[in-house]
């Protein structure tokens, strides 16, 4: 793997003013049919930082993450109350543009899920669909995005290789590269390392640190050590509630809520 210290992230594309929160969630309630998965959640995510959401399995971390790019809309029978503002605009407003929202807010899934296409075509996918780049410009885009996730040196001779033949870590990096090609501002990551071994996890965490120089990242993890290692802000969730949201060091060293304390000390498993 290349040295993460040598950043190849492209300059420019820094649209979030530093003083404005990237995400503001206000009194969000979320229902799967009759089941309330999120209860009165309020939080704000600062730009160009890594915000982690931790909590036991089933507490609503993924649901909260997926309500930030409205991926929950695909599930029938869901209902949302409250407001979510991403980069200043209310994403649940009736006039909200889902396609525009999702180009600004990208998502990395739990399992690496490259398309059954070549490495090159995976990265090029969105630009091909929207016809925003071709020929040399497309080559340049693919190189830039692969370089941003430190895959370029490994794969530059194998761009026509099927993405499905890559290692899991490479696949997950490729999925991030595919996402960067859309030029998002906010990256949502739902347990992105859960299928990776420790070395690959370490690699991906280094990458997150690099990406946070330019992008705002919200990561869900059930691995507390990972949250402590990578994030600057951290929220602890339990049974659909956001119990505590603070700077990461405060959560881990000086939690205000006894339930957070219990979790940090490993009493929920």
């Amino acid at each position, binding site marked *: 793997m290349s040295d993460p210290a040598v950043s190849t992230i492209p300059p420019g594309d820094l649209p979030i003013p530093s003083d404005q929160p990237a995400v503001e969630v206000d009194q969000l309630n979320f229902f799967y049919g009759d089941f309330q998965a999120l209860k009165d959640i309020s939080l704000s995510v600062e730009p160009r930082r890594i915000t982690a959401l931790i909590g036991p399995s089933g507490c609503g971390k993924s649901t909260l993450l997926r309500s930030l*790019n409205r*991926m929950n809309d*695909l599930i*029938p029978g869901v209902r949302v109350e409250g407001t979510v503002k991403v980069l200043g605009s209310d994403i649940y407003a009736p006039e909200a543009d889902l*396609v*525009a*929202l*999702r*180009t*600004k807010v*990208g*998502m990395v*899934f739990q*399992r690496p*899920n490259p*398309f*059954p*296409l070549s490495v090159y075509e995976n990265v090029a*996918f*969105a630009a*091909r*669909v*929207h016809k925003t780049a071709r020929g040399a410009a497309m080559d340049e885009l693919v190189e830039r995005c692969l370089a941003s996730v430190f895959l370029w040196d490994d794969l530059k001779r194998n761009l026509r290789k*099927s993405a*499905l033949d890559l290692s899991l870590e490479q696949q997950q990096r490729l*999925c991030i590269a*595919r*996402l960067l090609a*859309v030029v998002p501002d906010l990256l949502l990551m739902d347990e992105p390392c859960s299928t990776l071994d420790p070395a690959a996890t370490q690699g991906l965490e280094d990458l997150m640190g690099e990406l946070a120089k330019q992008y705002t990242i919200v990561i869900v993890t059930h691995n507390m050590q990972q949250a402590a290692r990578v994030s600057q802000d951290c929220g602890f969730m339990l049974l659909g509630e956001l119990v505590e949201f603070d700077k990461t060091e405060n959560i881990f060293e000086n939690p205000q809520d006894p339930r957070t304390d219990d979790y940090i000390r490993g009493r929920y498993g």
Partner: protein
Amino acid sequence: MTSVTKQKIAFTILGGITVLVALPVLLIVGVIVKHGLGAISWEFLSTAPSDGMREGGIFPAIVGTCCLVVTAVVVAVPLGVFAAIFLNEYAGDNWLTRLVRLAIINLAGVPSVVYGLFGLGLFVVVLKFGASILAGGLTLALMNLPVIVTASKEALDAVPQTFREVSLSLGVSKWKTIRHLVLPNAIPGILTGIILEVSRAAGETAPILFTAAAFYLPGLPQSIFSQVMALPSHLYAISTQVPNISLETRYGTALVLLALVFIVNSFAIFLRARLRAKRRW
């Protein structure tokens, strides 16, 4: 009896049954080739029948069948694929879509002669297309639609849901996701449906008998409103209504029909294999 011998006996019986299933197909092909091969000549393939259909070739029937199949495919494939896209990607599970699905399943079981009568009523008489390539092609298309819709829907359904999710999460609209990701991945399965239906459209006699087929028409069709000869109806005609026709001519006609279907199928299967090898998950 030990379990090993039992297993051997079971394998032998199962193997025998498999051969038994394949045997009729091989016999049919064998008999047709044996009796028909002698009739095949350039003249047979490229000239019109003569001498009350006892001499000459079957060229107009070959052309007619090709015209009918092409018309049927051109109509049925886009309609069927779009219907499948609608059913699988857009329509939810409600009484209307359940009704449509039920109708499609039942239509697939309707005997082809019923399609023929329906085509006669609608296309030939009411819409006044007359007995023509258009009327026959549309009738065949109707007959093909249920299978094409069902196969296409299954192929779309088999494309993993995560592909759609990822594409939507990349800010690609639903239609573009279908167009650029789901459909390309479903093409091999869709082709399977089309392959099946091309053979059926080429081989069925009943649907075209009243809607397109001419008994004897040595010229070539001038437009889609022309009546045509077609291989299956020609075979039917010479086998039942032309006395003293040589066995060779009849089997030769069947052989050409078989070869035509075989060529189209091999091409489609080859195409499907190429596409499958390229896209997998």
